[in-house]
């Protein structure tokens, strides 16, 4: 009898601890309440408290996402009344899936990936284009003698499989009437060891990787796909249709601060590296500055248009590249895939 009372007591204590823990967790996850009236800035037209949203990058913190990092560090998001948490992306955290599931509200991805996601039924919308040109290229070790695609024959190429670089390379070869079978291809991941060791002459990648490769002592020549007629948007900012419908004001404010961040970065390229280092200590600031310098030509839209500007004919070209490579079976209706209604013309 005594034993059963003791057991019930322990069970009661255990249940009590679980309930208190769950209640505390629930209270912690609640958004903060409105700012008291006496604390509001005089004449303020902004919301009474920062609205918290999370922004999922396409990849790790770096030069290709420095617009958001600068906007966070320079207080541009705070100025528009937003508290933005910037989350890294990657293989494990696909930004499209994170946004469509509601884990993040806004994300960064490739324009090609967005088209494919729409083709597969994901209700996502591009709200701004960071890169007006494709960042995809092939970097070649200078000693290999590769200067343009016609030099690829017989050379050893590391291909990052199942990425937009691979299929844009495929389209490049088709358009130039070159046979991929004449190139000695090998799948690679992110590591450049096989290049450094001399087992590969070149590899498919993005322009921003060039300073990283040069930091390993390699002399590099660049074959940029845009120079050979591949027209495609690169990274685009996107959100879900439901978030756009429910919170258009948040989207507008986010984009204002976000592209203010990019503008600041373009005007202060030598300071971008130190800001990136505050988020991630992986690469030296000089390497990040050099990578960002290569990104600047991709950012600029047409004369007189704001940063992030999009137009249907370039979306059509992006889609055409997907179809030519076989990644997309049939065309997707492009009118609903993007909107530049929320961009600011006063950047």
């Amino acid at each position, binding site marked *: 009898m005594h034993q059963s009372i003791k057991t019930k007591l322990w069970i009661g204590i255990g249940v009590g601890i679980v309930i208190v823990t769950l209640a505390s967790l629930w209270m912690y996850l609640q958004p903060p309440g409105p700012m008291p009236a006496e604390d509001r800035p005089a004449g303020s037209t902004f919301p009474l408290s920062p609205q918290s949203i999370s922004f999922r990058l396409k990849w790790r913190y770096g030069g290709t996402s420095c617009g958001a990092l600068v906007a966070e560090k320079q207080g541009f998001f705070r100025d528009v009344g937003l508290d933005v948490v910037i989350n890294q992306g990657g293989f494990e955290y696909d930004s499209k899936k994170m946004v*469509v599931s509601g884990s993040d509200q806004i994300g960064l991805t490739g324009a090609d*990936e967005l088209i*494919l996601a729409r083709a597969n*039924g994901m209700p996502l919308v591009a709200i701004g284009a960071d890169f007006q040109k494709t960042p995809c290229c092939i970097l070649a070790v200078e000693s290999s003698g590769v200067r343009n695609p016609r030099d690829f024959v017989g050379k050893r190429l590391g291909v990052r*499989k*199942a990425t937009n670089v691979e299929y844009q390379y495929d389209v490049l070869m088709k358009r130039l009437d070159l046979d991929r079978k004449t190139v000695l291809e090998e799948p690679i*991941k992110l590591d450049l060891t096989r290049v450094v060791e001399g087992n590969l002459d070149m590899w498919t990648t993005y322009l921003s990787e060039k300073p990283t490769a040069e930091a390993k002592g390699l002399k590099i020549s660049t074959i940029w796909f845009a120079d050979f007629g591949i027209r495609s948007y690169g990274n685009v900012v996107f959100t879900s249709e439901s978030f756009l419908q429910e919170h258009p004001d948040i989207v507008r404010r986010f984009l204002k601060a976000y592209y203010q961040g990019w503008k600041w970065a373009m005007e202060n390229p030598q300071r971008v590296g130190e800001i990136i280092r505050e988020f991630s200590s992986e690469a030296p600031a000089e390497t990040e500055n050099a990578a960002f310098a290569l990104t600047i030509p991709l950012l600029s839209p047409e004369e007189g248009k704001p940063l992030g500007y999009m137009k249907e004919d370039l979306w059509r070209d992006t889609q055409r590249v997907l179809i030519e490579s076989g*990644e997309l079976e049939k065309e997707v209706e492009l009118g609903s895939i993007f909107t530049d209604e929320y961009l600011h013309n006063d950047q």
Partner: protein
Amino acid sequence: MQCNWQRFDPFLERLEMTTNRQSTTYIRALVPPILILVLALIALEVAVRRNVIAPYLLPRPSAIIQDTFKNISSLSNDALITAMESLVGFILATIGAFVLAFAFAFSRAFDRSVFPLVVAFKCMPLVALAPILALWSGGGSLVAKALLAGFICFFPVIVNLRTGLNTIDQEAIDLFRSLSASRWVVLWKLRLPSAIPYFLSGLKAASTLAVIGAVVGEFACSDRGLGYQITEASYQGNTVRMFTAVTLLMCLGLSFFGLLSIIEFGMRRVFRVEFGNNNTI
């Protein structure tokens, strides 16, 4: 809810005329899980068609079946590649485990020195090892994937075989010793036959793990195989293809397991081996 098996008796009586009672026991064991699976698939199909579940999160089973038949040729090639990598890795692991377990049984000193290192080796995370092996052997080669499959299979086989070789009836040991049998004779004629059930259990556990190891290798660096299909489908946002590849991987794992179960059944009949009350040396 109790299932009234008596209503199936007329059917089972007809079946017993052509098969033995053991087969009908197997059929009785299979029917409930198959029934539950079919009901779950029907529920999922209805839920997705009615937009209760978004199709880009969880596709309709009929969409998975359609995708499989539409791309049967390329999926078969990829499944064959993953199967080859798994099989090669499994065979390498079995041979390695067999040789090492015998060495452990033959020499206690060797067992004490090396077995703890085997345990430590097992603690290395597979996903960290995958890119390293890909780097050493080159991205597209079968070697890296087979080694990964072997790495993950190796431990259950060697642990089970080692246990089996050391678990012997004391009376049998005494008999062999009384007849002045050498260590080699004891190992070959006594330990090995009694280790067969443990060995086969280890092989069955390892068979499904081999597929996992091959897929992890394909995630790390490959341009072929079902793991590569999953990577490519993830990039495209093609959830249907991801689930198609996962379903095929499941079937592959079940096939390996089924094959080993058949081998185990045959060996039990041929050697008449049973688990008994054995002593561990």
